């Protein structure tokens, strides 16, 4: 068990790389930076593969337990401090280990985070070659890898939260990588602050769990959830805890209403967008909810909330994406939308399907972003799709790989996206309760929109007529090898990753869901037996029985939606000239304006929370309240404080006078003056000449010897 026993090395590798870069990077050559950073992540990837392989072997003989290793306790523990009462009155120590946990769920994250991370590192070598702060960029990236791996491998909520905050920090640093640009630093601040709102929910949820279970380890929490005999009171608390956790997930994974930071995060370099804001970090929320599935299953209200928020986010972001012109922004909204899909899956209890979508999404979305980066690279930094066009022949590799990714995200078989998306829609449909049919409809429309805006992107970029300036056109070139190779690898993965989850209905065996069974199924089965009423949420168990004609029908329908979206995009944009017209604008200018301005959500937030916009010079909302309380503080509270201060000062002055003239004057200086006057005669004896002292010494010596000889 070489790799499994030393699994703690995996996060430490990029940590070393990152620390090395941030401490000594300034002096290093670019080649050294490459070798160290990419090498560290590559090693981490190799170790991750080895660990997962060994884990599968290990799990066979350990009844599919999670593999857990605790290095040491870094907070609380047996010290006797930090003891608190839990909800049933028992005393429990607050404890957080530096412990690692590997189970199928974290295995999947581990593999694609290190794998995609490595590819994006390689890509960055080419993409960042001519940028300043090269070592800083790679240092941040490695630091991010460390945080993300900590998050994934954590065996308790507190350590997970450490990784959670770590990736937040790296996200902040990388969004603001071009910190001399105001928009970039604003975007970084926005991401950071919005995430903190979510984190506050997460922390509260964590405390709830600690209070409920007496422990924050996942195994203990799961054991608590599987206990089965929960009073209605406890179930309410669990609902509250899971809702709070979901707030955290909303922040990190950009769900309504906290999604606003993600589109702005595109200010960072493109590899960062691909790695952090598409493939890995934003799925942390999904991971956290999936990790807490045992608790969520116990709280139907939370599940419904998750599903509804997910579905709404999906369609909301997709509709915005229809009209955006910035190539990266389209992809950003697409990411938000796909994240919505994932939460929809989690909300309807199809955890495996959600995770599967995360997995496939990581590849094709990273590919899309990297492809977009390659396009931007070719276009000398131009990001506006209105100024592109007809790049198909000029950058063929980028074109082909992006086309594959587009087919994948649109859900066209047999590309990866088809399997995961179809699975989600199918699970939504089969959930009991009519309301879920509405969610299905929303998801279905979103799928159509997805196909439309993705093909819109492809047509505007690669087909149609060239709309760029002559100068830019002259410089178009295919990207260097280090950028192309990751694109190709990711394209291959986008093509084949879906086969892991080939559904039973099409004659497959759905390896992916099977692999995840130990994480999700057991809890659900027990809940089903003991609760009965939670049955409608448990779809995974029953899917084998439901291989019905409906499923094939839905499959055909979703493929049809993708086809329709493709066709509409082709008709509108296949021959777009300079000054082409948007079809939505033609149909309804008002809708177009609302969509283009993103439903005015940012402006609304400015009025309500940030106080950046005022009405008649008066701030509204949270900041207005702040200003009012500030006035109260300045005039009333501080006035009282100043009054107290004045009284103190007057007293002190009196006391000072007394000290100076009475105590110091008579008490202290008096004796000193006396001593000086008395010591004046003794001073006359001191000549300050060394030899005089020596003479006195000699005379003293004579005296002593005389005394000892003749006494």
């Amino acid at each position, binding site marked *: 068990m070489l790799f499994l026993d030393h699994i703690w090395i995996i996060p430490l590798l990029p940590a070393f790389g990152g620390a090395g870069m941030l401490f000594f990077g300034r002096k290093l050559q670019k080649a050294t930076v490459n070798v160290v950073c990419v090498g560290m992540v590559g090693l981490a990837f190799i170790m991750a593969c080895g660990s997962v392989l060994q884990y599968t072997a290990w799990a066979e003989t350990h009844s599919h337990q999670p593999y857990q290793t605790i290095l040491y306790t870094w907070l609380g523990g047996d010290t006797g401090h930090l003891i608190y009462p839990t909800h049933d009155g028992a005393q429990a120590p607050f404890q957080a280990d530096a412990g690692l946990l590997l189970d199928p769920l974290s295995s999947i994250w581990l593999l694609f985070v290190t794998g995609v991370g490595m590819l994006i590192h390689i890509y960055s070598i080419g993409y960042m070659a001519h940028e300043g702060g090269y070592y800083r960029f790679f240092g941040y990236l490695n630091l991010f890898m460390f945080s993300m791996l900590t998050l994934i491998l954590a065996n308790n909520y507190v350590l997970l939260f450490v990784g959670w905050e770590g990736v937040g920090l790296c996200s902040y640093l990388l969004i603001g990588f071009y910190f001399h640009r105001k928009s970039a630093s604003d975007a970084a601040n926005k991401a950071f602050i919005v995430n903190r709102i979510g984190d506050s929910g997460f922390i509260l949820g964590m405390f709830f769990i600690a209070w409920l279970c007496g422990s924050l380890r996942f195994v203990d929490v799961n054991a608590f959830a599987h206990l089965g005999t929960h009073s209605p009171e406890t179930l309410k608390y669990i609902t509250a805890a899971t809702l709070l956790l979901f707030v955290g997930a909303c922040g990190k994974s950009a769900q309504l209403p906290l999604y606003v930071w993600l589109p702005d995060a595109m200010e960072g370099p493109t590899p960062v967008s691909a790695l952090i804001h598409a493939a890995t970090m934003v799925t942390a929320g999904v991971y956290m909810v999936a990790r807490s599935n045992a608790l969520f299953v116990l709280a139907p209200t939370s599940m419904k909330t998750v599903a509804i928020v997910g579905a709404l986010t999906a369609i909301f972001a997709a509709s915005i994406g229809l009209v955006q012109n910035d190539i990266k922004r389209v992809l950003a909204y697409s990411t938000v939308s796909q994240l919505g899909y994932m939460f929809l899956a989690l909300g309807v209890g199809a955890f495996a399907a959600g995770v599967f979508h995360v997995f496939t999404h990581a590849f094709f979305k990273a590919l899309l972003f990297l492809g977009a980066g390659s396009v931007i690279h070719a276009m000398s930094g131009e990001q506006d799709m209105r100024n592109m066009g007809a790049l198909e022949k000029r950058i063929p590799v980028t074109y082909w790989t992006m086309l594959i990714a587009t087919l994948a995200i649109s859900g066209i078989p047999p590309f990866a996206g088809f399997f995961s998306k179809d699975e989600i829609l199918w699970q939504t449909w089969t959930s009991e309760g009519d309301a879920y049919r509405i969610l299905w409809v929303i998801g279905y429309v979103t799928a159509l929109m997805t196909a439309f805006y993705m093909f819109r992107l492809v047509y505007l970029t690669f087909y149609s007529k060239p709309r760029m300036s002559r100068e830019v056109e002259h410089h178009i070139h295919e990207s260097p090898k280090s950028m192309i190779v990751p694109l190709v690898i990711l394209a291959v993965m986008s093509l084949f990753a879906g086969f892991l989850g080939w559904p039973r209905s099409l004659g497959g065996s759905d390896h992916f869901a099977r692999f995840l069974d130990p994480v999700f199924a057991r809890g659900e089965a027990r809940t089903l037996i003991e609760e009965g009423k939670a049955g409608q949420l448990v779809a995974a168990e029953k899917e084998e029985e439901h291989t019905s004609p409906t499923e094939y029908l839905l499959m055909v329908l979703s493929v049809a939606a993708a086809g329709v979206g493709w066709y509409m995009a082709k008709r509108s944009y296949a021959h777009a000239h300079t000054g082409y017209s948007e079809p939505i604008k033609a149909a309804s200018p008002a809708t177009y304006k609302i969509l283009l301005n993103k439903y005015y959500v940012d402006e609304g937030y400015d009025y309500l929370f940030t106080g950046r916009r005022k009405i008649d010079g008066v701030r509204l909302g949270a900041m207005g309240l702040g200003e009012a309380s500030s006035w109260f503080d300045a005039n009333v509270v501080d006035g009282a404080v100043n009054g107290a201060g004045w009284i103190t000062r007057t007293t002190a002055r009196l006391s000072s006078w007394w000290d100076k003239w009475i105590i110091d004057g008579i008490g202290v200086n008096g004796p000193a003056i006396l001593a000086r006057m008395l010591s004046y005669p003794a001073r006359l004896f001191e000549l300050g000449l060394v*030899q005089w002292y020596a*003479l006195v010494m000699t*005379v003293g010596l*004579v005296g002593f*010897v005389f005394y000892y000889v003749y006494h």
Partner: protein
Amino acid sequence: MNPPVGTPFFFYLLSATVLIGGVLVITRKNAVHSALALITALLAQAGLYLMLYAPFVAGVQIILYAGGIMVLFLFVIMLISIERSQKERQFNKQWLVGIAAAAALGGLFIAVYTKGKSLFPEGSLTYAEAGNTQGVADLLYSQHSGIYMFAFEIASLLLLVAIIGAVVMAKKRI
């Protein structure tokens, strides 16, 4: 081993050299002459050490005093010009009192030695000088009988402090 030859003769010869050297040290106007007289006295004293069967101390006396410290003295004397001081008074105002005090001390010494004459009765003793260095080393470093090991370390510390002190004192800018 044959008894050393002419011990009293050499003793008186070397003693005379030492004393004359000492007198010259404190009477010469020119500091270089003083230093040369001191070197002579020191070398003669090294000879006395040899007569006392202390060859190691004699060797240290030669290499450290005559070869090291006195070179330092000469070096410093040459660095500071002393033409002016040669024309000035050589003795300070208290010289008479100083000599008187020293004479009193000398008188007391005489008194003490006349009183305690019988304390050191033996004549010329001969001891092996063969193991002298090894014996001194034994006292300084040996694991069991090295009772001066700590003192030795302290002495090395003292030297370190002296090095730093001398540099700090003498260097214009550090």
